[in-house]
């Protein structure tokens, strides 16, 4: 019997794998053929760049056969791989603890990870993460950082006063629904009463859950996630999809379901049938932060998005960051230390760096290759990363539309994207008509691996074909006002917290250090990709390193 099961198992895997490859082949093949045809004649007279994270250097990881032999061997006490928010946060913590003997390796030409940004004549604009919310008041570590960076200017009766220039300027959000832009993103304009009622009910539930504590006295949903209640009753919500949960609760309103689906796409890059109920609710019920000068959940943003926060972190660390450097492999050294083989793409030199501790502030799909020689008893397959397309659209003017005027966040009901943000929202100056809109499209129509390969095979004109029709629905006639569109593809944009992921034993194991030498810090270890999680992951790893080194 067991043999048969084994046989059956491997056959299904085989078939699955085959059908996966077949689908990938068909989809990417189709795209490439279409791309060749489209090259000949483009429908739109729009130009710009198509780029993304440095896949050329990244792929060295996979086929490192052609790397030059290591020429240098040097030592550093702590080596950090990755200069996204988690890596920078870990480094900041080491530095704050008086540690200066550390180095951060970054494969891109610049630090920042998902908080990377761009700049043109009109404005800086985000290429990924673009906001945080007012910190939960008990999140002291984060509040300290926000104080350091003058995001919190002072306290009044112990309540933080947030920098007026960083709180999102009014008007904040609008939704295009039933032919008109309404105020706020929660559907309201032209909705039947019963839909309005369901939305009200859901929001009431979310508020209730926001203030609910588990049997251990901790909030059910919290940021960082690790401080959430361990109460099994609530953790069981991680075992079903958000879609199933909503069905069970009797939510049927298409408007409500659209809104919740939008929220899942916005925060996790996936639709609500791919997200666990726990994660889906976390979006609505984990933010309790208060401020003297803003409402609960108020949003903080900058023209360059979270790039601003990243710069604050990176500023004091600049001499420790080595960019254009990819870590290829990590091994234990015979002397009890750990050795990383790194390659610098600029100098074309391979080095061996011997460290006492190493913090892998890189996502797990990367770590899977980096430390394949080390024993780490986890399953990498549940780590799914949503691919994204970011389009930065430079306009000479935005067409007039009905209802509320341009806001920071602009979403259209029932469209593929999650809308666009106006990067100049936080500019104080009177602006002329020129705008940079950052448009976010989660690629969630196929499973991530297929969508990713499809995304990689698209050319510039094909992205125009995807983005422009939606823009034309949102703003008829916008095409002729477009000066430029720059596309940015994130193949592994953010971790998608599927069913049974956040509270799985597997994720718990993934957070565990190896031999007190290899430590892990990345938001994918929290299960959701937000600044706050990455920030805490970094501090946790740094604390472990400091502990391990006495």
């Amino acid at each position, binding site marked *: 019997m067991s043999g048969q099961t084994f046989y059956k198992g491997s056959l299904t895997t085989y078939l699955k794998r085959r059908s996966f490859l077949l689908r990938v082949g068909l989809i990417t093949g189709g795209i490439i053929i279409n791309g060749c045809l489209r090259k000949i004649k483009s429908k739109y007279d729009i130009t710009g760049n198509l780029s993304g994270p440095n896949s050329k250097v990244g792929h060295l990881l996979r086929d490192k056969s052609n790397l030059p032999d290591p020429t240098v061997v040097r030592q550093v006490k702590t080596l950090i791989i990755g200069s996204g928010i988690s890596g920078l946060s870990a480094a900041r913590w080491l530095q704050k603890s008086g540690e200066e003997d550390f180095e951060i390796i970054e494969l891109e030409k610049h630090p920042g990870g998902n908080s990377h940004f761009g700049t043109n004549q009109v404005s800086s604009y985000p290429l990924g993460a673009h906001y945080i919310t007012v910190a939960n008041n008990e999140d002291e570590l984060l509040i300290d950082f926000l104080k350091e960076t003058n995001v919190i200017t002072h306290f009044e009766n112990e309540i933080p006063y947030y920098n007026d220039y960083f709180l999102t*300027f009014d008007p904040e959000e609008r939704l295009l629904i039933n032919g008109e832009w309404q105020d706020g993103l929660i559907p309201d304009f032209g909705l039947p009463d019963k839909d309005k009622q369901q939305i009200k009910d859901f929001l009431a539930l979310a508020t209730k859950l926001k203030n609910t504590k588990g049997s251990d006295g901790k909030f059910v949903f919290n940021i960082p996630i690790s401080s959430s209640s361990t109460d099994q009753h609530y953790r069981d919500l991680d075992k079903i999809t958000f879609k199933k949960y909503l069905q069970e609760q009797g939510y049927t309103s298409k408007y409500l379901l659209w809104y919740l689906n939008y929220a899942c796409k916005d925060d996790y890059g996936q639709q609500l049938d791919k997200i666990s109920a726990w994660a889906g609710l976390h979006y609505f019920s984990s933010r309790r932060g208060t401020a003297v000068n803003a409402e609960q959940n108020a949003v903080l943003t900058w023209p360059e998005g979270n790039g601003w926060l990243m710069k604050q972190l990176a500023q004091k660390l600049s001499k420790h960051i080595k960019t254009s450097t990819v870590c290829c492999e990590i091994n234990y050294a015979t002397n009890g230390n750990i050795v990383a083989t790194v390659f610098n793409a600029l100098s074309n030199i391979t080095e061996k760096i011997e460290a006492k501790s190493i913090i892998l502030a890189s996502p797990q799909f990367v770590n899977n290759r980096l430390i394949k020689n080390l024993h780490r008893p986890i399953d990498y397959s549940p780590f799914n990363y949503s691919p994204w397309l970011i389009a930065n659209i430079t306009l000479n003017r935005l067409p007039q539309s009905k209802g509320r005027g341009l806001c920071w966040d602009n979403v259209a009901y029932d469209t593929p994207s999650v809308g666009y943000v106006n990067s100049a929202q936080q500019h104080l100056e009177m602006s002329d008509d020129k705008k940079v809109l950052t448009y976010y499209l989660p690629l969630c129509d196929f499973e991530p691996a297929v969508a990713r390969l499809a995304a990689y095979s698209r050319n510039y004109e094909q992205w125009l074909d995807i983005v422009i029709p939606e823009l034309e629905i949102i703003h008829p006639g916008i095409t002729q006002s477009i000066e430029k569109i720059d596309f940015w593809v994130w193949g592994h944009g953010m971790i998608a917290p599927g069913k049974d992921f956040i509270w799985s034993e597997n994720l718990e194991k993934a957070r565990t250090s190896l031999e007190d030498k290899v430590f892990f810090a990345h938001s994918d270890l929290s299960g959701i990709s937000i600044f706050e999680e990455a920030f805490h992951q970094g501090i946790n790893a740094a604390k472990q390193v400091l502990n391990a080194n006495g």
Partner: protein
Amino acid sequence: MNRKLPALLLISVFVVATCGLIYELIAGTLASYLLGDSVTQFSTIIGVYLFSMGIGSWISKYFEKNILSWFIQIEILVGLVGGFSATILFLVFESIASFRMVLYGFVSLTGILVGLEIPLLMRILKDRYEFKDLVSKVFTFDYIGALLASLIFPLLLIPRLGLVKTAFMFGMLNVVVALIVCLSFKKEIKASKYLQSASILSLMALLIGFVNADLITSLSERQTYSDTIIYSKSTPYQRIILTKRNRVLRLFLNGNLQFSSDDEYRYHEALIHPGLQALPFAKHVLVMGGGDGLAVREILKYPNVNAVTLVDLDKGMTSLFKSNKMLLDINKNSLLSPKVKVINADAFSWIKAQHTKFDFIVIDFPDPSNYAVGKLYTNSFYKLVKNILAPKGLMVVQSTSPYVAPKSFWTVNKTLESVGLKTIPYHNYVPSFGEWGYILATEPDNPYKKPQQYLPGLKFVSRESVNLMLFFPKDMSKVETQINKLNNQILVKYFEDEWANVL
């Protein structure tokens, strides 16, 4: 020779006469719009025009040969000059010093050309009619044309087409006459090909002008503004429109009235004197907004003030009020005073980088009708203003109407108080705005002392009137509001709601 031809030429007399009078009327109307005093303008224009026609008639004797082709060329030229006249006059109006020269130049040129036409026509026709018939026919058509022009101009053309389009239309008519004559007399004219192509090209130029005339003054604008638009310009930031009715000039920015020349003194005296008169030591004054220089005009009445800094976003606005004679008369050349430094910069960015202190700060921004301007009414902005206010200084903010928009007015008051300033709200009546509000603000330890006496020569502000201005009757009394903040621009919402009820 074709028998129809004389008839065609007579019709062209008719058209030529109509067009000629239309150009004269256009010039007269434009002059009275732009320069005012219609009696003087019309009579000088008519005089110059008729005199120029005389010159034209006199010159006609020097045309010896090829009269028909000369006639056609002159027709084309009249069409071009007349057709573009209104456009060019509108465009050069900004620099008014040369405006009269250009105006009378146009009038003379058109007059001379039109003056040439009739004598030349008569000479063309002289062999086809008896002299008495000729004179009778030509002048009959000439005067009928004049009558038609004088009737359709005010009744049909100005209300429907506007000056610029009318000019282009009649320019085209002139050229069409030239073209038809040219085609009909093909055999009698040398170089008819050249004349044909010249007239077709001119026709196209005029047509392009006609189609794009809306760029100069848009039809929709003419319908929006009850008075005549004499100047309009889109700068990167706003649309500036100047209108005139009789002697009254009005300035509109993005459609909102900024001042009306007949009662602006009430607004600007109220804005400046209750504050500045209380600061006999004031030397450095800052004006933010107020690119019209009218607040500066009031400030310069104080000899103790030796430096005024004016920060206005829009260079288009300050240049206009530095160069246009009609506007310089209103602001008394204030922006040209050596004491005044004009800075074209965004107020928020400018003030963020500013460290020197000012004794008196005037904040005269447009009303908070949108989120972009609304930022300049926030606590964040007032904090920055407070930083550059001298310890014993005063600032004053134009704060919309406490009668129409009490919530808006008291929001500005509350927002000023929220940054630790003591406020002194007041108001007065400005006929073209209605009841209008201002708020003085000062450091709390520097109480405001009401001036006992004001400068001589003020038309509105006096000790007695200020006492009334400081008193708020019940229908404008203080209401509870929130603070206006960058992340919650409550003021824009209030302002929208409150003015929506009125408009």
